[in-house]
């Protein structure tokens, strides 16, 4: 169970990215967060693993207050929260294998990781995860040689290495074409259904959200605009979320 209580984030520049956002996510849910660019989706996700420090409010995950954790505790918590990004955020010059193994850093003795040493068990696991996302044969080529969809799958494999119970996906398909988008979303769905990983995923496209979400939250200017089932978003709600001039764009 993930509980977000009165979360507020105000950046140093004065921008209010999140204002008093509260909601709960039961374990195993596929939650999609929608909203316009700048509505606070990325900030919300990054507050959950404290890549961004919240200004106010609490985030409680399985009875642990993430917002109150010390650096050491925070690292322990982050190990269990996987994250994938719109820009994939791979180390582009490093081989795929190194990128995937980096997911184990939280579990690895820092001294060993300095010399790029990982246990045989970790390496076996890395190949297994790559196999799972269908790019095992790419293990030893450089990450920047892969296509966008493949890079995102490396990102997923890296997150899987953490054995996460929660996965944060920050617009994972915004840089991909429609067909690849679906393939990446399918992997996330698989993790949700097979491994029971709770997924918080921000998306631009309502059509994708409707296809994959158990539940949708909409943010507008940092506030919760909608919280409910995908089918509940009708034309009026759509215009509330995206503005009066918005037109629905379907993604095949």
């Amino acid at each position: 169970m993930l509980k977000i209580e009165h979360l507020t984030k105000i950046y140093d520049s004065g921008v209010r990215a999140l204002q008093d956002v509260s909601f709960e996510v039961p374990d195993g849910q596929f939650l999609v967060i929608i909203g316009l660019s700048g509505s606070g989706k990325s900030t919300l996700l990054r507050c959950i693993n404290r890549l961004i420090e919240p200004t106010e409010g609490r985030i409680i995950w399985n009875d642990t207050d993430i917002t109150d954790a010390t650096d050491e505790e925070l690292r322990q918590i982050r190990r269990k929260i996987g994250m994938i990004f719109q820009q994939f955020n791979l180390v582009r010059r490093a081989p795929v294998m190194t990128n995937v193994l980096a997911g184990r850093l939280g579990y690895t003795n820092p001294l060993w990781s300095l010399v790029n040493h990982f246990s045989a068990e970790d390496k076996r696991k890395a190949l297994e995860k790559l196999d799972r996302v269908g790019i095992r044969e790419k293990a030893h080529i450089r990450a920047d040689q892969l296509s966008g969809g493949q890079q995102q799958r490396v990102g997923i494999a890296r997150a899987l290495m953490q054995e996460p119970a929660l996965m944060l996906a920050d617009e994972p398909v915004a840089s991909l074409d429609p067909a690849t988008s679906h393939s990446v979303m399918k992997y996330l769905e698989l993790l949700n259904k097979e491994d029971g990983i709770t997924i918080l995923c921000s998306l631009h496209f309502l059509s994708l959200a409707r296809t994959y979400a158990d539940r949708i939250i909409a943010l507008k200017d940092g506030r919760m605009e909608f919280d409910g089932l995908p089918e509940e978003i009708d034309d009026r709600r759509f215009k509330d979320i995206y503005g009066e001039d918005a037109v629905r764009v379907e993604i095949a």
Partner: protein
Amino acid sequence: MTNKVPRSSRSALRRLLLVLGIVIGVVIYAYGWTTTDISLDEVQDPVRQASVQRAMRELLSPDLFTRDRENRSFFVEFAIGCPEGDLPEGRADTGDEAYVIFTPPCADSDEVVTVEGFHFPADAIARIQLYREGQQNLPFRLVKSDAADAQASEESVFDVDSDGHFKVSVKVPRGRGLSGQTHQVEIQAAVPSGWPRLSDTTKTVIDKMIETIFLALMATTLALPVAVVLSFIAARNLMRQITLPLGNVLVGFVLLPVGGWLGYQVLGPLGQLGVRWGEDVLPGLGGSAGALAGFAFVSYALGRLPLAGSARRVRSITLNALLVAVLVFIVGVLGGAGIWLGGKLQTGLLADLGNFVGTLGTLTDLIIATLAAIGGAMWLSSLGANLVAGPMRHVFSPLSNVLGAVLGALSGAILLAMTALFGTQAVLLGLLTPVVAAALGGQLAVEVYYLVPGARKPKRDRTDVDQMIHTLAYVVGALLAFAITAYAIDLLRAIVDERPPSRAMIDLGLFEMRTYVAKSSLIGGVLGGLAAGLAGTQVAFPLGMSVYNTSRTILNALRSIEPLIMGIVFVIWVGVGPFAGVLALTLHSIASLGKLYSEQVENIDAGPIEAIQSTGANRLQTVVYAVVPQIVPSYIAFTMYRWDINVRMSTIIGFVGGGGIGFLLQQQINLLRYNQAGVAVLAIAIVVSILDYASAAIRERIV
């Protein structure tokens, strides 16, 4: 329509300003012209023109090669002053024997005669001189024209043409008792023999050029590790996120000197013991193996214990401390082994290696105690900050303010005592104390301002006016603190009279202290205590940014000092020679590379950092996995570039005694030996352009 008039008047004003600007610009430029003594008189002076022509001609005729010459001498009789009686007969032309004809056949001193020679060795370089038994020979100087009043040149060497013929006008030499007698005149003809070879100048230049290249290489490689470390702490994007609660920072700061003292007292002797044992090799090896085995055993044994919570923490702290001790010992052993190896390898092929290892060993012996002190300070300080992190979070106002006041007073006192100790050394360093006090005072004033009802503290609600008041409070506080401190420590005495601070001592009961230091530390204590007391231990302290600002300031200051000036200082310290040059270039390279590198770090893609952090990696792992892969290519490129620059700089560092080819070049220029200087200049041009090309090619390939 309404703004038509203002617009045209505005454009007229703009035009006027433009004209005014141009006039002012020309005036400033003219002043610069005068200041820099630009004048055409010197340029047109014929004497100067002649010298520059000669210098240029010789510079462009470098003394690169030489070859052996065989001297052959021909003797002929010549009468000076035309004595009575028969003149010596010129030799008859026998077809292949060399002979000369003097016209006129005899002449007085300083008169010009024409000498024509036949059947001399072809293409020889020849000279004519008056041969005197047991005395110095007197040369017949060449005369450019046949006129009697023609000036004799300094030269006496001329060429024989390819037929073996020559015809020159020379002046009969003057000397006591020469006149009225017949003398032997020697005509020396030097014929090239053997292959051309490098001249001695060239050999010396090559020697020095190698020294120069290695000088640059040493400076670059020595600077590299320091610059890499500095570049991370001088990178804004890495440091900005590092903030700690003020309380933790203060605890860490207070523990710095304690840890330093402990490290010096405990780890230092341990390291030196390692050096002693290492010098005998076997005990060193045994000791290291034993220490490692002991550590492995202890860590295994402790690791088996089922500990939790704080006991676990105590265990990891103990193990870390043990590991540090073992490592210090092993470093000492390595140093000692270096000294031993250096002693063994004093001669033979590996003498250079022996010298290298031996010097490193001695260096380890010298600095291990200092390193241990620094290590101890860092370790205890971070340990303290970490240990109090948990409890500190549950300290709230007013206790947090009381705690802040105590810790702040201690930290402030320590900080200003340290700056005051620097300040006793030189006038400019004396400024450090009031400046640091000003920073504290500014912060204090801001904290006082927050006490005013209605003052908005958090950044998010602050308007521009709030920001202005905030800045104003800081400036006022800083100025006040500066003035008070400057008065208290009598800054005028230092700046105006250039006298060191007073040596008066004050008895503090337990020990005596210099009043100057005591006063500074009292001011620091009061300012620090008040500021931290008002702020409380919970407030976030931008530790990263303060480290960033400090390191950037130091790098910028270092970079602004030319290596030539540093060279002068190091020549005073270690004497004339390449070592001084290495030190000067190293220091400058650290500053320069540190800046270049840190800018690379600041330009990296932040995405991978986020990604690696989100896996639960610690800070070091994040740097290794997300930052390092992104910066390696540009670091290599900049290092090559720096080596290139260092070669150029080391060509002139010799001008101040820093060794390398510049030293040779300067000597030759001072002795007006431009032919030789030309070789050095040519060598510099060749080496610099090769390196320039090579480093550009390598950089292109990597980036």
